[in-house]
């Protein structure tokens, strides 16, 4: 049959669209490797208070003591001493794109960030290597008392508030990579939404790695006060390098009574990035926390956004998409921990694997003693596109109460020849037919995204699917 030859490089379009890099233009770059001196240097350069400097140094000790996690994907190739832990791109954050250095501005232009800010965002932060180079929030929100700063600025300008919550949701002892982040963190977002304030339009942060052999360790702290609402969106890309980069973020979220927070990620790192991230939220009485987590890029991703439901009426939701192509391993999922009676949670996971990729769901539903009348449902669906790809499901349950309602459903399917033929018989070529079936598979999650991101997500899926069916 006459079909175009399949292209071999799965993420071929990536290199042109996102995989480019700027000439090194940093103002400071630490030497390779990690030790007390490097950590102290980062803290000194940032002019931090002594407590933060000590916190970092303690975290370094914890990092060094903790063994590498052995229960998930193979991380043995990470060479911690070959990484640049701190690359400072500019001397200060800009509040206007005109003040961002030209090559960085060009990069963010190519990625469409300033345009998106104009069209459909309340505020934007743009991080380039270790530091946030641009940050801005709409004046209207600023007047309402909404804070949207880089995490460094948050510490500088609102130290008391920062200190009250920093490290309370994810202590540096939590896991090896949380400890690493706690010792070398830089950039990320600090958000505070005052009582009753609804931020109707999303805030967005964009993370860009530019330097080769770079480690990016942004830290995000979001506090949504009583009855408030915020939707935070993050996106990320990096140049395609032959050597590996490390991205290890920590995100802590506090959702106060009656508040709601939605955190959306469209992760599109290049295929040489290890993406090892700890994300956790605590939700209080009648509060709602929603994670919408899309993982399309990276070499290995380990990420399980979690929600601790601390008080009655709290609700946690995790919608996860993992797409693994050639050479990729997406170990995604989520955790919901019911700590109080009458709490509810929902996890929906959709994983897709192709060209030898491996995508899976790893999740935990935990109901603590006393959390009676809690309800949880988990749905994980896997779609495998060919014979050489793999899908894994690891659903863990720790249920310590009887009077609870727990549901779990899992399906694994392959794209059917009959589905492809049906779409082809309507004039849609094989490649687009497969892309359409995949788009349909993730539709229940994509429809939760704001329109612009839904379009972006479908476009990324298209890109992933290009040249995939022969």
């Amino acid at each position: 049959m006459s079909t175009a030859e399949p292209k071999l490089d799965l993420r071929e379009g990536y290199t042109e669209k996102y995989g480019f890099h700027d000439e090194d233009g940093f103002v400071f770059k630490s030497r390779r490797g990690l030790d007390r001196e490097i950590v102290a240097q980062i803290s000194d350069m940032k002019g931090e208070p002594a407590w933060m400097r000590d916190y970092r140094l303690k975290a370094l000790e914890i990092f060094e003591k903790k063994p590498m996690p052995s229960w998930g994907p193979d991380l043995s190739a990470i060479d911690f001493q070959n990484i640049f832990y701190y690359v400072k791109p500019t001397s200060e954050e800009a509040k206007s794109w005109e003040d961002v250095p030209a090559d960085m501005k060009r990069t963010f232009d190519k990625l469409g960030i300033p345009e998106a800010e104009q069209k459909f965002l309340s505020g934007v932060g743009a991080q380039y290597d270790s530091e946030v180079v641009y940050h801005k929030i709409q004046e209207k929100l600023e007047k309402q008392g909404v804070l949207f700063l880089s995490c460094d600025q948050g510490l500088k300008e609102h130290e008391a508030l920062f200190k009250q919550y920093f490290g309370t949701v994810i202590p540096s002892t939590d896991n090896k990579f949380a400890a690493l982040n706690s010792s070398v963190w830089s950039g990320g977002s600090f958000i505070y939404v005052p009582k009753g304030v609804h931020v109707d339009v999303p805030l967005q942060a964009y993370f860009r790695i530019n330097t080769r052999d770079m480690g990016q360790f942004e830290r995000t702290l979001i506090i949504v006060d009583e009855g408030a609402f915020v939707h935070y969106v993050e996106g990320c890309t990096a140049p395609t390098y032959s050597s590996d980069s490390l991205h290890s973020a920590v995100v802590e979220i506090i959702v106060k009574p009656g508040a709601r927070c939605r955190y959306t990620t469209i992760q599109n790192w290049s295929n040489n990035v290890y993406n090892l991230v700890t994300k956790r939220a605590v939700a209080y009485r009648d509060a709602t926390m929603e994670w919408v987590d899309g993982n399309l890029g990276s070499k290995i991703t380990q990420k399980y956004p979690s929600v601790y439901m601390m008080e009655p009426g709290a609700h946690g939701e995790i919608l996860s998409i993992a797409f693994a192509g050639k050479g990729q391993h997406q170990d995604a999922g989520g955790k919901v921990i019911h700590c109080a009676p009458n709490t509810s949670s929902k996890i929906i996971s959709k994983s897709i694997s192709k060209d030898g990729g491996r995508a899976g769901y790893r999740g935990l539903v935990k109901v603590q003693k006393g959390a009676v009348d809690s309800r949880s449902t988990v749905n994980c669906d896997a779609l495998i596109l060919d014979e050489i790809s793999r899908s894994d499901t690891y659903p863990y349950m720790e249920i310590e109460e009887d009077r609870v309602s727990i549901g779990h459903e899992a399906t694994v399917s392959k794209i059917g020849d009959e589905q492809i033929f049906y779409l082809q018989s309507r004039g849609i070529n094989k490649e687009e037919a497969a892309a359409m079936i995949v788009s349909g598979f993730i539709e229940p999650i994509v429809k939760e995204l704001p329109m612009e991101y839904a379009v972006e997500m479908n476009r990324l899926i298209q890109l992933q699917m290009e040249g995939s069916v022969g």
Partner: protein
Amino acid sequence: MSHTPELVVKDLHVGIDGKEILKGLSLEVKKGEIHALMGPNGSGKSTFANTLMGHPKYEVTSGDILFRGQSILELEADERARAGLFMAFQYPVAIPGVTVANFLRTALNARLAPADTNGAGAMPHKRGIAPKEFRALLKEKMALLKMDESFAGRYLNDGFSGGEKKRAEILQMAVLKPEIAVMDETDSGLDIDALRIVSDGVNALAGPSMGVLVITHYNRILNYIKPDRVHVMVDGRIQVSGGPELALKLESEGYDWVRDGQEAHKS
């Protein structure tokens, strides 16, 4: 006015897994004509429909299929569709998460795409019919088939009743405007009301710019769609062809007389 038939099937032999199913089938269908192809179970009707559309499971061992004068044996199903061939499926498959509207717009854009693009540009965000224009077209065609507007937002064939599936097939035919449409047992599983709606739809679409081949086991649908020609297929080839009266004979006498080789009726 006479012209070369859009669809010419010449002495077609088709096998599946090495077993021959079609054994020398020949047929011609022109735009503006309605043909009925009737036959008992196992006579090869569905094999024929799927082979016309280019299902990869069926292997053409000899003979040819010409569409608008060109052999289409080497073309993929999507290329055949874009050229103007259409098949209404007996068992349409579900595509969860893809709405009827999104799917149809993609398909229509593929149909309208320039010939050298392999249907690329089919995805709506690339190019093609304007959303507003498309919505108007879809609304008009859905009204023709007495479909509720909410239908456009449902996932394709996902949880559809038998009647809804068949109506959705005809809706696709209406939007894509093929030159030749093959209807593979569209009447099966339909109650009388659904059959009437589907038939009315086909009758409204049939005309000088489209030829129709109705494949059926029973002549029930032929009470609503009046064929110009009736062909009777038994054991992998057409044994008898004739006018509409042939369908009536089949109704009263069954297929046995054809099987028994009564060639006398052949016209």
